[in-house]
């Protein structure tokens, strides 16, 4: 039985690690806001270890509706995320060294798991920020919640919000698609040649 990886799968490991490493250099996710008073737009960029952009402006505006202010230090994710992705990259090198299909499958699964957990966590934060409002807030609209969209467009009072992957997110998506594709490819190759 040949449990070794094909050459193309090995290349995909290197490419995927490269894509994930890009997350240290470009933001992962972005939320863009627009309102009549903000024709130039406001945007928030989420990195694996930080939140940047017009955070202070957003915090200033959100106090009207009683939304909690956003602070980098409130997010343990900014510590865990680089560690998780760092470990993922390290494991990738081990997969390359041990050169086993099974390890490759598990490694791909790990990336998809990180993606799923991250998106769930992101949604949970958005829900929390959008729903847990200060009861003494100056502006209270009955039944109104301010949860930004997980992905896509939403209109909230005078603001329009657009949530989507930033450059880093797209690198992540490329890595995930590549590894999933290669898993399918390897699986088929193994079945076909009964390896």
């Amino acid at each position, binding site marked *: 039985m040949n449990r070794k990886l094909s050459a193309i799968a090995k290349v995909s490991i290197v490419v995927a690690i490269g894509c994930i490493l890009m997350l240290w250099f470009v933001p992962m996710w972005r939320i863009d806001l627009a309102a009549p008073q903000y024709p130039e737009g406001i945007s928030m960029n989420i990195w694996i270890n930080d939140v940047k952009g*017009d955070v202070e402006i957003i915090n200033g505006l959100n106090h*009207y509706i009683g939304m909690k202010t956003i602070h980098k230090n409130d997010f343990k994710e900014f510590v865990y995320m680089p560690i998780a992705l760092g470990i993922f990259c390290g494991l990738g090198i081990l997969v390359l060294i041990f050169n086993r299909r099974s390890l490759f499958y598990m490694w791909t699964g790990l990336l998809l798991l990180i993606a799923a957990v991250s998106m769930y966590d992101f949604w949970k934060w958005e829900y929390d920020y959008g729903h847990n409002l200060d009861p003494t807030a100056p502006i209270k609209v009955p039944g109104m919640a301010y949860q930004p969209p997980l992905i896509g467009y939403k209109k909230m009072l005078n603001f329009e919000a657009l949530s989507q992957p930033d450059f880093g997110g797209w690198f992540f998506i490329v890595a995930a698609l590549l590894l999933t594709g290669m898993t399918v490819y390897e699986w088929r190759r193994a079945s076909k040649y009964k390896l």
Partner: protein
Amino acid sequence: MKISHLLLTATVALAVQSCKMKSTESAVGGDAAARTYVAPGKYDEFYNFVSGGFSGQVAVYGIPSGRLLKVLPVFSVNPENGYGYSEETKAMLNTSHGFVPWDDQHHLALSQTNGEHDGRWLFANANNSPRVARIDLKAFKTMEIIELPNSGGNHSSPFLTENTEYVIAGTRFAIPVGNQESPLDNESFKKNFKSTASFIGIDKNTGKMDVSFQIILPGMDLDLSRAGKGPSHGWFFFSTYNTEQASTLLEVNASQKDKDFIVAVNWKKAEEYVKAGKAKKMATEYVRNTFHEETHSATSEIIKEVLTLDPTELKDFVYLIPCPKSPHGCDVDPSGEYIVGSGKLAALIPVFAYQKFVKAIEDKAFEGEYNGIPVIKYEAALHGEVQKPGLGPLHTEFDGKGNAYTSFFVSSEIVKWSLKDLKVLDRVPTYYSIGHLMVPGGDTKKPYGKYVVAYNKITKDRFLPTGPELAQSAQLYSIDGDKMQLLLDFPTIGEPHYAQAIPAEKIRDQSVKFFDINKNKHPYVAAGEKATKVERKGNEVHVYMTAIRSHLTPDNIEGIQVGDDVYFHITNLEQDWDIPHGFAIKHAPTAELLVMPGETSTLKFSPKTPGIYPFYCTDFCSALHQEMQGYMRVSPKGSNVPLKWHTGGEDTTKAVAAK
């Protein structure tokens, strides 16, 4: 019979109609509206900085729309934003004779590098209490004002050399140097009165101004001036009147001579004399005010001496060129080769050639001396005369295509003529009595051309009447074609004298949106609500207050007593574009504040009676702006109410003993 009667009546009526005087309504071209229309949300092509005349300020208009974009406070207090009222800005209007709240602003100069606008600074003159201001074009703020010693009426100012080495200040009134008392008669004038041409050096990096040296000239009136450029770089030319040296009824007495002078100063040579230690130190006293970006505050300093150069002792750096009939404008063309003198009362415009002027000096083609200064023969320096151009020539600008545009006050028109053959090419009426005119970049080595703007002295019927006191007016003309074409009238503030215009893209993108609160080094800044406090130092109380949408912190203050001087130091905590906050407290005679994001500004208030004094934000900052308010409690002197302050719940209350 009846029909012929009718015809006769009609003919007579028509004849009477055609006998009417020519109307001042000009034919405005059919596409004028489209050419000046700047659609909502779109930007103008040029920033037009226009002197505010007797308002003391500078106005900024968009060209070609003529829309007023901003009034820049420079030499007068400005109730709109607290300039000259706030504790931080009061010092900007200090002079050797105390605080001067209102001056007369005439001319402007945009800083240049290699003879072209560089978009860094705008210089402005104060005509009455002689001063020069430097305005920063990133924040659109007056950053420095320097006073001039030995000057009376700083009219021929603030003209610049081609690399902004110097800004010039020539005195309009001759006065006794040292400003000592002197009898007022012609004999005393001739003996004691002098004119000065001050060269204010400008630091290349910071823009800081210093009076480098003053040239003491015979008593006469220096009117306007221009630096040479290109080949004539190193020279400065001043027009003069009253070379008759009269102290009274100048209307008659200063109009007697057939020719006055253009004073040509070789400032490079003057620099050499200064470097060689040949300038004389003179004790005097003048003030320089500087606005510090980091502390958002101005300080004043007194300077006690000035270097002077006497051209009757140090030879060969000042010459006089005769120029007909009390010249006003003295303008140098983009090539630096031609100097246009505009005799206000002359029926021609003399144009001097720099090369011929230099040769005349070499050949010693002098017709004599005037108070010890050599006078060059008129013909030796003359390039030629523009014949019958109009009445009352004042100023000339250039389009960079070999054409000159001269304003005529008396005949109320702009005349376009050719520098090469001095032939008149076109003329258009102005409404009415034009003073200065301006072609964008028309005083630089590379004019942008496209438009000429007339700044008029009389408005009369051009706009809806508003009583005896009318707005002033400007007129925009296209100079793209062979014929000048009137496009637009627009009202202006104060009285517009000279102006400057610069393509929007040279300034637009550097414009500051707000001040970084982390760089705010104001001694009384509260860089966050946690830093707010109220401190008592004897009868001085300092309130470190913050403003952010939509509350002031603290908004309840107690323990103030009659006899206290309360300083409200307001820090605007916002870090976003266009979120200013204001501050006003009832009965404060020091007016109000307008505080930009990241800035700290101070209002001083000495309450006279016990009671409750409401205060609030004066700038509609947010949906809850109307809630942005608070109270100060003032108790009788010696009261035992402790000093305390808070915003919101009692838990944030801080109390300290009153003493």
